[in-house]
C-alpha cells in the first residue's frame, strides 16, 4: 500500500499544471481516487463526509455481483459440456465458462471506459465512476454467444446516447446497461433471442471441442413455456438442453440455459444480502418488485387460459431475469425513484409490468428489461407527485393550526 502511495505521489507532478503529461490529468486523477479515498474536502457549505464515496459504493455493487458472475461462468461450462455430451471436472467447466465470458467483460470495459475517459479528458473533468458497474453488468445480461463487436457497438451507443448526452454519470434517465441490452435486442434479434444463443456450443480458444449431441435444444425455460402447445401447466414440463427434466433446484442454483448473470437465484440472493447489509441497494425497491410480480401472477392465475398464465409464482421468480432485475437493475440509485414512498410505487409497477409482458406477449418471453426501462422514464414523475403530496399534506396541517 505504502509503495503504491509513494509511486503515485512520485509521478503526480508530471500530471499537474505545467507537467508534460498534464493533458492526461483526468486519467491520473481517476486512478488515484480509485485506489485511495481522496483527502480533499469541500470548501463551501456544510457537508458530512463519509469514506464511502461513489467509487467505494460501486465496488460494493461489483462485489455483490461476483457470486452471480462466478456461478454463471460455471453454468456456461456446464451447459456446454452437456451439449457436446462430455463428462468433465468441475474446474474444467468453470474454466471453459471463464474463458468464454472474459472477452465480453474486457470488450465492455475497454469500450465503455475508453469513451468515458476520452469524454472526461476532453471536457477537462474528473472521470466519473458510473461505468465500473455498468461494464460488468453488460456481459451478465446478454446471451453468452453475443458476438464481441455487437457488444462493442451497443456499449458505445449506450454510453454516448444514454449517458454522456444527458451529462454523464448521475444524470442519465435510463439504466445504461439495460439500454445496451435493449439496443442489442432490437438491432440484432436473431442473436439475442430464440433457442440458439443461450448455450455456447462452439469451442473457446480451442477448449471444449466437440459435436453437439442428438436431441439438443437450447431454449430457455421461459422460451419453452412461451411457445408451448400444452393447454395447461400440469401438461407442461421444463426440459434442460439434452431433454432432461429441470427441477426447481436446478432453477434455484442456476443450472439452466440463460444469460450469465441471471441464472442462479441463489447467487443473486447472496448479492442482495450484500447490497442490503451495506446499505447500497434499497430493500424497499427489491421487495416491492417481488410484491408487484406476486400480485400480477395471482391475478393472471385466477383467470388462466393457457400454460403460461397458470404458471405458479415461484417459477416466475426463479426463471429469467426477474430476480436479477429486481436486485441489481431496479435498485440503480440514479434511474430509480428516490423518495421512500416512490420506491414502493416504482418497484411495484416494475414487477407488475414484467409479469404482464411475459404472460401476454409471446414475442417477448422476458419482460424485465422493458419493464425497468419503462419505469425509469416514470421515476421522476413518481418522485414529483410523492413530494407534491407531502407538501400539500403539510400545508393543510399548517393552515389548520392558524
Amino acid at each position, binding site marked *: 500500500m505504502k509503495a503504491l502511495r509513494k509511486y503515485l505521489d512520485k509521478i503526480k507532478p508530471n500530471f499537474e499544471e505545467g507537467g508534460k503529461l498534464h493533458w492526461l490529468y483526468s486519467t491520473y486523477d481517476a486512478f488515484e481516487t480509485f485506489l485511495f479515498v481522496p483527502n480533499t474536502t469541500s470548501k463551501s457549505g456544510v457537508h458530512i463526509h463519509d469514506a464511502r464515496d461513489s467509487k467505494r459504493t460501486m465496488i460494493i455493487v461489483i462485489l455483490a455481483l461476483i457470486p452471480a458472475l462466478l456461478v454463471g461462468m460455471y453454468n456456461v461450462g456446464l451447459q456446454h459440456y452437456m451439449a457436446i455430451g462430455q463428462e468433465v471436472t468441475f474446474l474444467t467447466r468453470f474454466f471453459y465458462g471463464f474463458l468464454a465470458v472474459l472477452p465480453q467483460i474486457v470488450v465492455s470495459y475497454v469500450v465503455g471506459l475508453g469513451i468515458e475517459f476520452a469524454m472526461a479528458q476532453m471536457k477537462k473533468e474528473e472521470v466519473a465512476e458510473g461505468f465500473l458497474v455498468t461494464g460488468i453488468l453488460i456481459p451478465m445480461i446478454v446471451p453468452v454467444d453475443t458476438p464481441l*463487436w*455487437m457488444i462493442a457497438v451497443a456499449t458505445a451507443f449506450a454510453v454516448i*446516447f444514454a449517458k454522456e448526452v444527458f451529462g454523464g454519470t448521475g444524470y442519465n434517465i435510463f439504466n445504461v446497461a439495460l439500454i445496451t441490452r435493449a439496443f442489442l435486442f432490437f*438491432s*440484432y434479434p436473431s442473436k439475442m433471442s430464440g433457442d440458439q444463443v443461450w448455450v455456447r456450443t462452439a469451442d473457446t480458444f480451442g477448449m471444449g471441442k466437440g459435436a453437439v449431441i442428438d436431441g439438443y435444444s437450447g431454449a430457455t425455460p421461459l422460451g419453452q413455456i412461451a411457445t408451448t402447445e400444452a393447454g395447461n401447466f400440469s401438461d407442461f414440463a421444463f426440459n434442460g438442453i439434452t431433454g432432461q427434466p429441470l427441477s426447481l433446484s436446478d432453477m434455484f442454483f442456476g443450472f439452466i440455459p440463460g444469460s450469465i448473470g441471471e441464472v442462479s437465484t441463489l447467487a443473486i440472493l447472496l448479492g442482495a444480502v450484500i447490497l442490503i447489509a451495506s446499505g447500497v441497494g434499497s430493500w424497499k425497491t427489491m421487495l416491492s418488485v417481488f410484491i408487484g410480480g406476486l400480485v400480477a401472477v395471482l391475478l393472471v392465475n385466477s383467470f388462466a387460459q393457457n400454460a403460461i398464465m397458470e404458471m405458479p409464482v415461484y417459477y416466475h421468480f426463479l426463471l429469467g431475469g426477474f430476480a436479477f432485475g429486481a436486485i441489481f437493475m431496479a435498485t440503480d440509485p440514479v434511474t430509480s425513484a428516490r423518495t421512500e414512498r416512490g420506491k414502493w410505487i416504482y418497484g411495484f409497477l416494475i414487477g407488475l409490468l414484467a409479469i404482464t409482458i411475459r404472460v401476454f406477449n409471446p414475442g417477448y418471453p422476458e419482460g424485465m428489461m422493458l419493464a425497468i426501462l419503462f419505469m425509469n422514464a416514470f421515476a421522476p414523475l413518481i418522485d414529483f407527485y410523492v413530494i407534491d403530496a407531502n407538501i400539500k399534506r403539510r400545508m393543510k396541517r399548517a393552515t389548520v393550526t392558524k
Partner: protein
Amino acid sequence: MALSSKTKAVLLGPLNKNNPVIVQVLGICSALAVTSKLEPSIVMAIAVTIVVAFANVIISLLRKSIPNRIRIIVQLVVAAALVTIVSEVLAAFAYDVNKQLSVFVGLIVTNCILMGRLEAFALGNGPWPSFLDGIGNGLGYGAILIVVGFFRELLGSGTLLGYPVIPQGLYDAGYENNGLMMLAPMAILLVACIIWVHRSKNKELQEETN
C-alpha cells in the same frame, strides 16, 4: 443569374441556419416515417419541395384577395389540390414508391412546413420570393430526409437505393444489419445527431443552459 443578397437569404437560409427540420423542428413525423429507405426519402423530398413552392406561388398571387378570416381554408384547398396532383403523378409513374409512401403523400397537406410557409411567408410576399422560399424550405427539409434515409438504409438494410453496398465478405465475417435502424426511434436519434453536429458548428443557435 445573380441573386441579390435578400433573395439569397430566402433561398439558402432554410438549408442551414433556418432549417425547417433541425432548427424549427417542423415536419418531424414524416421525416421519421418515410426515411427507412433512401428512395422514398428522395421522392418525398421532391414532392414536398414541389408542393411547397407552387402552393407558395399560388397563395402569394391570391394574397390580396383572400379574406383574412377564411385564409386557412383557402390555403388548405390550394395545398390539397397540389398534393392530389403529386399523388396522382406518383401513382402513375412511380407506383412502388407511391405504395411505400402510402398515406404520407396525402399527409403533405397537413405538413407543418407547408402551412407554416404559407402563413408566414406567402401571405406577405410576392410570387417570386415566395417561390424561392418554397424551394429553399423544401430542399432544407429534403436534405435532412436524404441524410437520414441514407444512413438508415445503409446500416439497416446494407443497401443504397436497393443496391447492396456492404460486401458479402463482411457478412461472412459475422456482420449483421442493424434492425433498430429500420424502426422510427433510430430516425429520431439520427435527426438528433444532425442537430448535434449542426449546433456545435453554429454556436449562436445553441440554447442558453443554466
